[in-house]
């Protein structure tokens, strides 16, 4: 009985956001340390960590967008499609139309913004289920990608390639390889973009009226309205931000792979949702933290690395791993929240 009471007080005192965030951070460190201890090798080198960042910069950006939509009570599964569409459009612009790098960046932003405006309008002002809207968005983006150009191809534009091969050296984190040559640790430009966006949006969510509005609307839409928040505009903006971020992520992804293809970023929406949920964003809205989302992405990719290091490197293991992680965390969320509700009631 005593233990039960103590538990319920922990359940009730810590805020929803913190309890889920703590779980995530603990799990990430446990996993990473476990990987170092049991699999050693690559995990001991800082570059391993930077490679995770390099490979997942785009995912980080889409995930924070996803978190924002989810915090305000919505969902957007079109992000993967938008990433693919952006990569294809930019590739076509650079190579076939002879466009500039700056122009391709504008295209990426424009596509993201357009998806955001349309989807946001349909969800917020016409009150259509976000899932259906973004499901259509996803199919539209994927279909459009093939309409723009059917075959995948690598970009040859010199200006772009220079940008693509830019490396940002992290001093003091390098290692000496087998031949005795010191190799610098580096990150790609996309990582910097991702980190800047995480910090920027973290600040927005924590300290601005709009950011707090996302939480209020996700917590209780009716109450938020009564408290004088413009609910429609807030929901609209959450979708605009998410899709614009997906556009930026598309460019970062494009910068990482250097090609356009309709099969790019397949299932990225799923990874973004999984990262958000693992990072402590509640599916039901109102609870979440972008730092948690960042850790969610890192956890997800770390476990993928662990799985492939363990010799299970067939492609299907990735899908199964992510799906089971998502499943476990969804169930944990559901149970934690039910218990909390019960603890508060009594």
């Amino acid at each position, binding site marked *: 009985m005593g233990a039960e009471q103590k538990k319920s007080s922990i359940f009730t005192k810590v805020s929803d956001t913190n309890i889920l965030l703590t779980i995530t951070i603990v799990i990430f460190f446990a996993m990473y340390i476990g990987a170092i201890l049991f699999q050693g090798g690559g995990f001991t080198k800082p570059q391993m960590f930077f490679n995770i960042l390099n490979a997942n910069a785009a995912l980080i950006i889409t995930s924070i967008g996803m978190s924002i939509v989810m915090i305000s009570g919505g969902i957007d599964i079109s992000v993967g499609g938008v990433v693919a569409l952006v990569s294809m459009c930019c590739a076509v612009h650079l190579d076939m139309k002879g466009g500039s790098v700056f122009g391709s960046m504008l295209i990426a932003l424009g596509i993201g913004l357009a998806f955001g405006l349309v989807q946001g309008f349909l969800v917020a002002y016409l009150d259509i289920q976000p899932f259906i809207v973004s499901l259509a968005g996803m199919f539209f983006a994927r279909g459009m990608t093939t309409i723009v150009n059917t075959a995948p191809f690598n970009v040859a534009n010199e200006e772009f390639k220079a940008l693509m091969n830019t490396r940002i050296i992290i001093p003091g984190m390098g290692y000496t390889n087998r031949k005795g040559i010191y190799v610098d640790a580096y990150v790609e430009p996309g990582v910097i973009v991702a980190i800047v966006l995480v910090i920027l949006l973290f600040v927005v969510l924590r300290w601005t009226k709009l950011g707090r509005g996302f939480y209020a609307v996700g917590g209780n839409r009716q109450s938020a309205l*009564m408290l004088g928040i413009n609910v429609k505009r807030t929901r609209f903006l959450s979708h605009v931000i998410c899709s614009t971020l997906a556009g930026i992520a598309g460019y970062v992804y494009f910068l990482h792979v250097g090609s356009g293809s309709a099969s790019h970023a397949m299932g990225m929406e799923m990874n973004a949702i999984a990262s958000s949920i693992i990072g402590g964003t509640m599916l039901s809205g109102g609870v979440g933290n972008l730092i948690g989302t960042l850790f969610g992405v890192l956890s997800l990719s770390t476990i993928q690395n662990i799985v492939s290091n363990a010799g299970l490197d067939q492609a299907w293991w990735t899908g199964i791993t992510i799906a089971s992680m998502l499943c476990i965390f969804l169930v944990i969320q559901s149970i934690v929240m039910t218990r909390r509700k019960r603890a*508060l009631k009594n």
Partner: protein
Amino acid sequence: MEENRILEMRGIEKSFPGVRALRGVDFSLNKGEIHALMGENGAGKSTLIKVLTGVYSKDNGKISMPGAEDIQIHSPQDAQNAGISTVYQEITLCPNLTVAENMYIGRGKGVITNWKKMNEDANKILRSLDIPATATQQLASCSIAVQQMVAIARAVDMDCKVLILDEPTSSLDEQEVEKLFGLMRDLKSRGVGIIFVTHFLDQVYAVCDRITVLRDGTLVGEYAIADLPRVELVAKMLGKEMDDLADIKGESAGYQGDIVDDVVFEAEGLQSDAGIKPFNFYIKKGEVNGFTGLLGSGRSECVRAIFGADRILGGKVKMHGKEVKIAKPLDAMKNGIAYLPEDRKIDGIVGDLSVRDNIILALQVLTGFFKPFSKAKAQAFAEEYIKKLNIKTASADTPIKSLSGGNQQKVILARWLLMHPEYLILDEPTRGIDVGTKVDIQKLVLELAGEGMSVTFISSETDEMLRTCSRLVVMRDRKTVGELSGDDLSQNKIMETIAGGEG
């Protein structure tokens, strides 16, 4: 506009599909006064307030405040900007945010939230109002009463000119109510106009200066508190002299069978997860009894426990002296218990289904998954009860959601009567429906009892219960505190018992 006026509403009209909720209502509020807005459920109080706070937009009429003739209020934001704040009965705050945020979100200018200043300010106000909460606490971790007070603190801090309190006391205990009254008087002395909506007459006479009475969407009148004795107030609210209703009981003689002492249902130490203390209860054949107590006292939770609507945590239940297990509604139905829930919209009607499907639903479920009624049979059932209860509907095929509140309630009643229950529980069957239907339902209850059915009747309106019930279980703070029958059945005695034994 008169000099002292702070708010004036003229000729306010508002219609919903099928209902004219407000018909040319006038209302005015002075500086530094507490003005009670009275009326029965469905009289138009809530609609008027929602028009004033921008939740609904009015169809017609004019709202003026000093310095602003004919202001337009289209959203709660507009209302806030105009200096109108509202505290609703149900909590309209965000449970996932902190107390301080709930007090400050959606207000003021600027883009940045200054957490430190916000928390300090919030703590200052919470302390000055003696509210037991801290600024950084998550709202969901506060009790409902404290959440209510946070909402008031928000309104107070907004420096509002007009403060609307929409049944704020229903979930507060006496001390908290006193504290609230102190707060209201304090605000009044600062020149704030307060609109106070409540069901408790005592509270009106304790704190208000003037009363406006509404009935059926029209204005009955505006009175100074000294000019309107209680009895007259009640008469104005009901729109008729008390004697009209007083006699229903006399018309039916009650159950005349032999085995009057047969206890149909009995509960011992029954407890559910809805937070009520274990309680004992019984009902005899042909008896009409009721649970009374303030809103939130646990009376609905008790009958829900009897029906197995909430998760049962413990206790014994007997039908005709034989122990039975009721863990879910279907168990109760199999034992001949029927339950008309308190909230018609959420728990009662199945909106998009036809009147026919709504009527047969319970009996159909009881009959079994693999034995659907034929169309003809279902139609016959529906028509029988549409006629019997005089349900006004275009046809049995009409979706129930397009019926008026009173007729919806009759359909739900028909649903349970079709089951021919031994024991019928009616939780607020008369809420939000017209007076005529109310009387119909009360008569029906007595008629059914006369035929030998046991009925438990719950109503917020005490006189309704006095008219129908022969025994009342009184509840306070989620436990039973007394039982009244015979000569003890009077308004005063009930009030005393609810208030806690000064009698």
